[in-house]
């Protein structure tokens, strides 16, 4: 029986994972992949499968857990975002060489644009690097379908298979057909075989040529047996222009040509960009005078061609080498290639209206009431001359408060603090440094850096901003919380303070994030201890994330216009959506559309202009 539902792309992918009989799934949240793992748990609960689905502490952990489940013969999958695959790159490259047992699907979600990432790298390139097969869906419906074929292909060739949805597939919403679960359950059975499961150099001598052979066998299948993903949309009559399109670009280009009423262009849709069905692609190229390649974000199809000199793509600048291929971008490329008149750009009238109305894009900000804002304020007030390396999470938005000086990747707040300390140590200069990291990020990759800093006696303060949630990605659990995903599945909370002490940190104290005065005293003490004892110190700032909607004191506030001198201190140092500046009156005021009445800003104004208005609130 099948029914239809409107699903988020990630929910459709998750549904495919469960329908395909996957029994072990692990991941780490990261936009645009975050909804997949919770949806796998949801479908497993709804459909009553035995699937074990978990968050790992990071992507490497998740990948390795899922891989080992495949060693034991289970269908398994690992889920992450593109930069998460960087973290999992080590096991990924090794396991690519293995003769796997259970089907193993790697879902790596890309973020062209990027919308919520530090790079817009192309996971398909990683598939090419590891020499493994990759599916590149154009729609949510296709992504779900590809999950089945990926598991099947993986099991037939004993190789990892990647599904690479881009953000527009992950976060599209589409009507999707729901089917029943295929029952492929088989008992876990790990067969001891060191030659197969131990990655010694001697095995690579066997496995690498075998991997090459697998790739060519899969390529042959992609040439002939995957017409549902690799197919030609023929033109009416003879086409001069042929477009090779993959991923969401295929969906966009077909919609544009349709809306133009153009049917003298043929399109070759490629759903399996690696290994590229080369004969099919080269045949298509040979039949067209002019060929354009549209793919995101890197030239993966382009670079696999034996001769790309005859095609229009990224190598010769017809397609931009960075950024998302939005409908407007593809339209412009199509206009250039076909000699059609380009659509008019931004209207000068609209531009003028926006200038006159003083409208600019709204930058992301920490939520009203966010505890990080208060923590950052207390740190900056206490150690204004410090350098503030920070990390990946909501608190990266502390950049608006001048509290984030550098961010590299997950966990690098701590290692940057170490590196900065080392640089100033060379010159014999004592430089205050306060690093900030969230609870989930601390477990993800903070621990090795902290152990290293203790070992090497690095002098800095580490602020762990514990809001009891992996918040930026929408509110997932992590080891510091202990909740698990499936109904009835319980975990255990890992104590942050214990982990910090376990790394060898001698001075660690906890403060309530809203308690600005208390936090300031601790920051001062922590820095004094660090510099006098030559060791890192840790402050844990605690307050639940606003997304958790936990009950807290309601403290309505107002700005007294008599006392406000218009210095903008509260705007620049506190930066709350609920506290805004009236440029005409030159006074701050509370924007009640956004204020959540946390009352923290009462302690912010140096002129005492922000007042509690107790009694007025029902």
């Amino acid at each position: 029986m099948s029914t239809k539902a409107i699903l988020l792309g990630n929910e459709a992918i998750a549904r495919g994972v469960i329908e395909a009989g996957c029994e072990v799934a692990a991941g780490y949240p990261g936009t645009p992949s975050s909804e997949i793992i919770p949806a796998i748990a949801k479908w497993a609960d709804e459909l009553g499968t035995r699937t074990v689905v978990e968050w790992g502490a990071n992507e490497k952990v998740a990948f390795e857990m899922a891989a080992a489940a495949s060693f034991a013969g289970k269908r398994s999958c690992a889920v992450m975002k593109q930069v998460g695959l960087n973290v999992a790159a080590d096991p990924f490259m090794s396991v690519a060489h293995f003769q796997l047992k259970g089907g193993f699907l790697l879902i790596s979600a890309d973020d062209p644009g990027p919308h919520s990432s530090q790079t817009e790298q192309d996971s398909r390139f990683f598939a090419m690097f590891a020499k493994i097969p990759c599916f590149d869906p154009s729609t949510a419906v296709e992504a779900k379908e590809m999950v089945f074929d990926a598991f099947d292909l993986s099991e037939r060739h004993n190789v990892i298979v990647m599904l690479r949805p881009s953000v527009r597939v992950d976060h599209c919403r589409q009507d999707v057909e729901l089917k029943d679960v295929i029952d492929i359950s088989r008992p876990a059975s790990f067969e001891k075989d060191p030659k197969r499961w131990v990655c010694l150099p001697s095995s690579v001598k066997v496995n690498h040529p075998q991997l090459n052979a697998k790739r060519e066998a899969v390529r042959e299948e992609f040439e002939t047996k995957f017409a549902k993903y690799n197919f030609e949309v023929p033109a009416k009559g003879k086409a001069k222009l042929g477009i090779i399109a993959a991923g969401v670009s295929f969906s966009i280009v077909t919609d544009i040509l349709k809306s133009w009423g153009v049917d003298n262009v043929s399109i070759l849709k490629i759903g399996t960009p690696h290994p590229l069905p080369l004969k099919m692609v080269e045949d298509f190229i040979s039949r067209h005078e002019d060929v354009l390649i549209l793919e995101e974000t890197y030239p993966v199809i382009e670079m696999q061609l034996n001769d790309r000199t005859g095609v229009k793509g990224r190598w010769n600048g017809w397609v931009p080498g960075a950024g998302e291929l939005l409908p407007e971008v593809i339209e412009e490329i199509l206009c250039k290639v076909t000699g059609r008149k380009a659509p008019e750009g931004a209207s000068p009238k609209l531009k003028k209206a926006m200038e006159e109305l003083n409208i600019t894009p709204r930058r992301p900000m920490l939520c009203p009431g966010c505890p990080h804002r208060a923590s950052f304020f207390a740190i900056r007030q206490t150690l204004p001359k410090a350098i503030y390396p920070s990390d990946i999470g909501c608190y990266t938005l502390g950049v608006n408060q001048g509290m984030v000086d550098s961010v590299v990747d997950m966990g690098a707040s701590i290692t940057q603090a170490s590196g900065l300390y080392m640089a100033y140590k060379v010159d014999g200069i004592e430089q205050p440094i306060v690093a900030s990291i969230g609870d989930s990020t601390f477990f993800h990759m903070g621990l090795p850096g902290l152990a290293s800093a203790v070992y090497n006696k690095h002098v800095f303060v580490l602020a762990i901003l514990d809001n009891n949630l992996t918040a930026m990605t929408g509110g997932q659990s992590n080891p510091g919380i202990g909740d698990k995903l499936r109904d009835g599945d319980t975990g255990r909370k890992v104590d942050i303070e214990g982990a910090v002490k376990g790394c060898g940190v001698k001075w660690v104290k906890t403060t309530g994030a809203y308690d600005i005065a208390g936090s300031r005293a601790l920051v001062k003490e922590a820095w004094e201890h660090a510099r006098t004892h030559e060791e890192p110190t840790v402050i844990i700032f605690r307050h639940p994330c606003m997304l958790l909607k936990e009950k807290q004191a309601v403290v309505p506030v107002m700005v007294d216009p008599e006392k406000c001198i218009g210095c903008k201190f509260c705007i620049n140092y506190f930066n709350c959506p609920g506290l805004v500046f009236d440029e005409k009156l030159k006074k701050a005021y509370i924007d009640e559309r956004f204020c959540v009445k946390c009352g923290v800003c009462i302690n912010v104004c140096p002129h005492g202009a922000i007042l509690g208005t107790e009694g007025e609130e029902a």
Partner: protein
Amino acid sequence: MQYVIVGIGGQGILFSSRVLGHIALSKGERVVGSEVHGMAQRGGSVISHFKVGDYNSPMVKAKEADVLLAFDQNEAVRNLHFLKQGGQVVVNTHEASFVDNPSLKSWLGERDAKLRTILGYDILKKHMGGRFLFLNVLILGAMCGAGVGSVSIDEVREAVRTLAPARFVEDNIRAVDLGYEGTR
């Protein structure tokens, strides 16, 4: 029918496209759309695309939207370029005077676009204790009241009844109706 729904992260705009999706599906229509998740949801500009009919791409191209639904007037102006000739806009407003801007008026005239405003914050403050989270359904009611879009007020009520959390159903319906009355 192509919708663009814009607002500020945290305003709950995703629920509005879910309601539209539910209605379309119940009528057997094909739908595809695109949402924003992640960093922009933290108070930044957010945009949701929603298309009913025979489309592949989840995104609305500039100058192709039939309807622009805006939870915030600034976001409305920033995204007007999505509107097609003769398109329609429904905007939640906090300072209604923005519509008097001559450049804006002239642009809307050229594009033959109809713009309707609703003072959503004021209405929710007056009638629903300032619970601004109900903006997302209020604006759907306002859209129907203004006779914009491809769904009826009864369909919206029915879908909201199905999709809203049980204990907030009545409040949601009330907000839908307040929106509907506000633009009718």
